[in-house]
Structure formats: structure tokens, C-alpha cells
């Protein structure tokens, strides 16, 4: 915009300068022309005077010759001789004055011819008269009057003068026209220059005004940016620490008026206990002039309220003071949230530690309980067996029955305790993780169940199995429990068990499928819970811990275990083992 206007202004000034130059050139030219036409007019006048002089001289000569002829007075001859002598020069002067005009020149040549002719006649008449032949002289004069040299001279001069006057007139008219045109051109140009001058003047005035307005609006804008900033801002003198300027936000936030602020120093808005720190900081500022500072402080409002603030200060020159511009953000809330968050995190960490401690406690408890329970159980079961062995048949049949139930109960309790012990031994650590070939694990488990497999006429199909990272003992137990279940919960058909694996992105998906009695979907989750049994112990023996142990082992290996099943058609247990575990 500015360049555009600027260009127009430059153009206008250029045009004005050109116009003034044109005016000057035209004026000079016109002056020249006027001067030239003055010369021409003077020459024309001189020509007319000269032609008159020629006329007069011719007439004088003629009169003198005629007077001599009439009177015989020889003094007339002298005069005539002088006049005749002057004639050629007068005509030459006339010729000089016509310059390059060929028409006038040919007229002058004719005049010369007539003058010479006239002179010859008069001189011959004079010579005749001198010789006494007055009759011959009179005849010549009369003949001359007939041939009319005098008239011809008169008419030639007349023509010369007329032509001279006409040409002068034509030239004058032309000059006048040109002068008028020139006058107009000058007026137009002058008008244009005046208009341009007006335009330039107005333009400059407008530009100045706009510039001033722009400056004012820029100042307003920056003042507004300072004043209406969402952050409190101020400027303080680095020497006196006095406030030099504060913005509206500071006034609003801190409760001091502008004048109050300007009468205070930055130490006045600090809590007393922070003044030492402020002093130290200011010393460091003085030893590093020009440094940019950023820090967290506490400020006191007029109301006495203390707020936590984040302060950024950088050096500026302000109205001749070495000063610092300070931007303050209130971080009281943020600080509070941070503290809350910190408290929450601490609580959470404490809870987690408590939970982990309580988990460890629980496992220790389960281990100790099951371990220590064995001691009295062994007593109960051993002495019952001893009783059965030594005194069977010596008591009545009822006593034998009591002993039988007591022995049976003790047996079951023993199984429970052993399983519980096993369950509690599946820790959460990963200390025994090594690469484990699951094909080898299955082979070993198969050997354990060899007799059972033969007895049940079961068919076990095993796919290609991978090497995984895990605890070999626990993985063996996992497969052992699953295979044991598959063999145990068979239907009346011979069991068919398929063990397979599928490789997925992050883990191995193992499956152990059977064609047994299946599980009702409503129990899919329940079976993995410790001591949850679906069957009467007289149908299928077991403690209800096997799958709970499986779940614990799988979870320890970063995996998941679940079952898909249809009652009477078989179950498929799936579990995943994390590849990177």
C-alpha cells in the first residue's frame, strides 16, 4: 500500500518536473521566436526605408538631370553626379536586406535594370546637352517619357514594397497564431503543474496523517497487549527496584492501584521470609547484567494472600532506566494440583507396596498353613491307619465304619493341603525363566501318564510345538494338569486329546482339546477359581485346585487361559504364552 502511494507520489513529482521543464523550454523558444520576428520586422522596415531612399535618389537624379537640361546650370550636374554615384550602393543595400527571398531578388534585379536604363538615357541626354545638341536631348527625354523608365522604377519599387509588406503581414499573422497556441500550451502546462502540486501536497499531507494515525494505533495496540495480557506484567528499575510500569492484570490480580504500585519496590510484594533469597538473586542478577531470569517465587497480594508464581524477567531499557520486564504467572493452583498428584501417587505407591506385601504375606501364609497343617494331619491319618491296621475286626462294624470315614476325610484333606502347597509355590517372580522346548515338556508329561493313557485306550495327538521362554517345572505342571483333566473327564467314548499351537504376533496360542463330557458355558469362569468343583467327589475325584494352578502359571507367563466347550462334546482349553517373556 505504502509503496503504491509512494510510487504515485514519485510519478506525480516526476510529471511536474517534466512539465516545468517543458514550460521553460517553450518559454525560451517563444522568446527566441519573438526576438527573431523583431529582427525580421526591423529588417522589413529597413527594407522599406531603403526602397524609399532608392526611389527618392532615382527621382532626385532625374530632377537634377531635367533641371540641368532646362536651365543649363552645371551645378545641377554636380548634384546629379553625386546622386548617380550613390544609386548602386543603395540598390545593393536593398539587395542585402532581402536576404534569401528569390522573388524579391528578381524584382530588385528588374529595378536595377530599370534604374540602369533610366540612368543611361539621362546621362546620354546630359552628354548631348553638353555637346549643344539640345534637340537630341529633348528627344531622348521625350523618348524616355514614352518608354517610361521612371514609371517602371516606381512600379518595381511599389511591387517590392507591397511584397515586402505582404510577407511581413503573413509572418506576423503566423507568429500571432503560434503565439496564441504557445500561450495556451503554457497555460495548460501551468495548470497541470498547479494541479500536480496540489495533488502532491495533499498526498504528502495524507501520508503524514496516515503515518501518524498508524503510529498512534500501533502504540495503542502494544499498550493494549501489555495492559490486557492475561499474565501480570511489570517493569522495574534494576537500581532502585521500584516499579516503573504495571499492567492492568497485575493491578487486578494484586489489588494495588497503579499509583500504589509505582510507589513500591519489588521487595514490597515479597513475604518477609523470602527477602534473603530475593537479595541473593538480585546480587546474581547484578553480577550477570543482561541475563534472562526464570524462577519460582512467592508474592504477597494487597489482601495479604500469598501466591506461588512463575517469574520470567529480561532486561530492557525503559524511559532511560536500566530495567527489567517481568512476566508473572500464578501457579498456585498448579502447585496445589501437583501436590495433590504427588500425594495421590505416594498413596498409590504405598497401597501398591501394601498390596504386594499382603500378596506375599498371603502366599507365605498359604505355604506355612499347608506346610504346618501336614504335621497334625500326618498324625491324624497315621494313627487312624494304625488303628485300622491293628484293631480292625476287634471293634464292632460301626466303629470300623467311623474309622473308614475318618481315614477317608484325612486322605482328602491331605490331597487338599498338597495342592494348596503347590498353588502357593507358583510365585510371581521370573527367576527361573529359561528357553523351554514344549515338545520335550509334553513328552515328559506323556511318560507320566503313560499307564493311564493305555488303560483308557486314549489317543493323544501332538502337533509341532515351539520353544518358549518360561519356568520349565511350571509349564510341565500346566500341561500335566490339563492332560490329567482331559483324561479324567472323559465320556463313554475312548478319549481323543489334541495338543496344538498357533503362532500369533505377540504370543503362542496353545490348545488342549478333548472329546470328553464338556463344560456348561455358565461355569467357564468358575472352573479357574480355587476350590471350585463342578462334580461330586464320588464321580470325579479332585480338589478343585488344578485349573486355578494352571491359571496362575499362565498369568505368570504373561498369558491368559480360557475354555471353549459344549456339554457332552468336549472341551478345548486355550492359553497364551508371551513370546518375549
Amino acid at each position, binding site marked *: 500500500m505504502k509503496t503504491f502511494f509512494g510510487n504515485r507520489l514519485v510519478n506525480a513529482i516526476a510529471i511536474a518536473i517534466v512539465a516545468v521543464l517543458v514550460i521553460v523550454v517553450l518559454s525560451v523558444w517563444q522568446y527566441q521566436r519573438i526576438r527573431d520576428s523583431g529582427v525580421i520586422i526591423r529588417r522589413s522596415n529597413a527594407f522599406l526605408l531603403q526602397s524609399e531612399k532608392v526611389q527618392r535618389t532615382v527621382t532626385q537624379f532625374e530632377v537634377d538631370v531635367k533641371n540641368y537640361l532646362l536651365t543649363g546650370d552645371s551645378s545641377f550636374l554636380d548634384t546629379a553626379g553625386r546622386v548617380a554615384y550613390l544609386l548602386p550602393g543603395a540598390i545593393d543595400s536593398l539587395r542585402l536586406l532581402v536576404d534569401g527571398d528569390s522573388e524579391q531578388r528578381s524584382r530588385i534585379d528588374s529595378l536595377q535594370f530599370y534604374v540602369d536604363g533610366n540612368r543611361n538615357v539621362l546621362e546620354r541626354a546630359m552628354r548631348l546637352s553638353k555637346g549643344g545638341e539640345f534637340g537630341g536631348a529633348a528627344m531622348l527625354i521625350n523618348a524616355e517619357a514614352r518608354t517610361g523608365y521612371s514609371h517602371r522604377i516606381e512600379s518595381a519599387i511599389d511591387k517590392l514594397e507591397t511584397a515586402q509588406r505582404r510577407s511581413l503581414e503573413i509572418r506576423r499573422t503566423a507568429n500571432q497564431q503560434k503565439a496564441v497556441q504557445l500561450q495556451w500550451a503554457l497555460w495548460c502546462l501551468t495548470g497541470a503543474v498547479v494541479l500536480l502540486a496540489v495533488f502532491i501536497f495533499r498526498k504528502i499531507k495524507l501520508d503524514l496523517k496516515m503515518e501518524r494515525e498508524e503510529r498512534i494505533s500501533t502504540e495503542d495496540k502494544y499498550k493494549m497487549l501489555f495492559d490486557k495480557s492475561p499474565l501480570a506484567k511489570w517493569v522495574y528499575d534494576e537500581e532502585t527496584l521500584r516499579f516503573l510500569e504495571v499492567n492492568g492484570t497485575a493491578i487486578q490480580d494484586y489489588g494495588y492501584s497503579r499509583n500504589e504500585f509505582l510507589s513500591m519496590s519489588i521487595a514490597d510484594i515479597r513475604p518477609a521470609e523470602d527477602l534473603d533469597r530475593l537479595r541473593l538473586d538480585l546480587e546474581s542478577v547484578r553480577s550477570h547484567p543482561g541475563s534472562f531470569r526464570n524462577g519460582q517465587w512467592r508474592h504477597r497480594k494487597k489482601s495479604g494472600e500469598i501466591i506461588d508464581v512463575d517469574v520470567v524477567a529480561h532486561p530492557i531499557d525503559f524511559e532511560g532506566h536500566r530495567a527489567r520486564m517481568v512476566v508473572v504467572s500464578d501457579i498456585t493452583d498448579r502447585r496445589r494440583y501437583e501436590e495433590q498428584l504427588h500425594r495421590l501417587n505416594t498413596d498409590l505407591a504405598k497401597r501398591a507396596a501394601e498390596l504386594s506385601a499382603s500378596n506375599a504375606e498371603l502366599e507365605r501364609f498359604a505355604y506355612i498353613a499347608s506346610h504346618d497343617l501336614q*504335621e497334625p*494331619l*500326618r*498324625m491324624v*491319618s*497315621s*494313627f487312624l*491307619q*494304625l488303628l485300622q*491296621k491293628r484293631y480292625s475286626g476287634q471293634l464292632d462294624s460301626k466303629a470300623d465304619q467311623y474309622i473308614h470315614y475318618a481315614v477317608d476325610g484325612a486322605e482328602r484333606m491331605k490331597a487338599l493341603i498338597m495342592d494348596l502347597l503347590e498353588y502357593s509355590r507358583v510365585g510371581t517372580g521370573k527367576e527361573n525363566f529359561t528357553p523351554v522346548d514344549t515338545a520335550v515338556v509334553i513328552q515328559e508329561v506323556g511318560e507320566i501318564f503313560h499307564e493311564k493313557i493305555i488303560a483308557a485306550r486314549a489317543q493323544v495327538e501332538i502337533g509341532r510345538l515351539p520353544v518358549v521362554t518360561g519356568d520349565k517345572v511350571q509349564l510341565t505342571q500346566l500341561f500335566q494338569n490339563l492332560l490329567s483333566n482331559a483324561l479324567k473327564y472323559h465320556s463313554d467314548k475312548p478319549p481323543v486329546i489334541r495338543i496344538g499351537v498357533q503362532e500369533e504376533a505377540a504370543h503362542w496360542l496353545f490348545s488342549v482339546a478333548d472329546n470328553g463330557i464338556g463344560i456348561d458355558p455358565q461355569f467357564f469362569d468358575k472352573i479357574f477359581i480355587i476350590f471350585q468343583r463342578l462334580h461330586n467327589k464320588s464321580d470325579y475325584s479332585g480338589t478343585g485346585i488344578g485349573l486355578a494352578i494352571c491359571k496362575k502359571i499362565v498369568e505368570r507367563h504373561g498369558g491368559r487361559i480360557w475354555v471353549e466347550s459344549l456339554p457332552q462334546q468336549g472341551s478345548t482349553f486355550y492359553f497364551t504364552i508371551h513370546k518375549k517373556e
Partner: protein
Amino acid sequence: MQQIHILLVDDNEGDILLTKEALDDARIINRISIAYDGVEALRFLRKHAGGGDMPDLILLDINLPRMNGTELLGIIKTDPGLKRIPVIMLTTSSAEKDILASYNNYANCYITKPVDLDRFMDVVRTIEDFWISIVKLPKTVQ
């Protein structure tokens, strides 16, 4: 036939009785001394040290009052007068740390008491059979 002297260190009367029952059935005539804790057992051993009444075999439980089995084992196996007596750890514990601590203290063997009565009887008889009849031990007379 030479009478065998066994020192049974156990605080459980039931276990003592069962062990006795098992040994009663044994082929070899034996004599059993009982100590109910480590301190008592050590006092017994020190009393008879160098004498003719030193036990031929020690059956040692781990969980004992006052001085436990592994502590007593450590003392026996570092005592020049006692360390040649075979010590069989016979305990309910099957914890790895107990097994390791026992062998590290030169236990001669470690046996977990079977929960089943018949198996327990078998184990006791096997101990007797192995350590008394099969194994050749040095003469006890100094």
C-alpha cells in the same frame, strides 16, 4: 547280635511313637534314645562322648524348640568326636532351603516324612536296613 543304638531327636510324641512302632517291627534289635530338642540332644551326645553308649545313628527332625535340627547338625558335623556319626534328617519339611541347608552342613541324607502310614513305616525300615545292615560304619569304641 550287636544291639543298635539310635538317637531320635523329635519334639512330636506322635512321630516318636510311630517311629518306635516302625522300629519295633524291624529285624534288628535296637535301642532308642529320645531327645525332644537340639539342646537336649547335644547334652546327651556330650555326656556319652567317647563312652560306649554313643548312638550309631541319629534321626534328626528340623523344626525343634530351642535349637533346631540344622543348627544341631552344624555342631555335630564340626565336632571331631561326633562328626562321623551318620545323621539322617527325617522331617516333614520338603522346602528346598531346608534340604540345601542340611546337605551344606554335611547331613548324611535327607528324608521327608511320608504322610501315608505304610510308606512312613517303609521309610523307617529302609533307613534301618540301609544304615545298619548295608553300610559299613567305623567301630564306635574309641
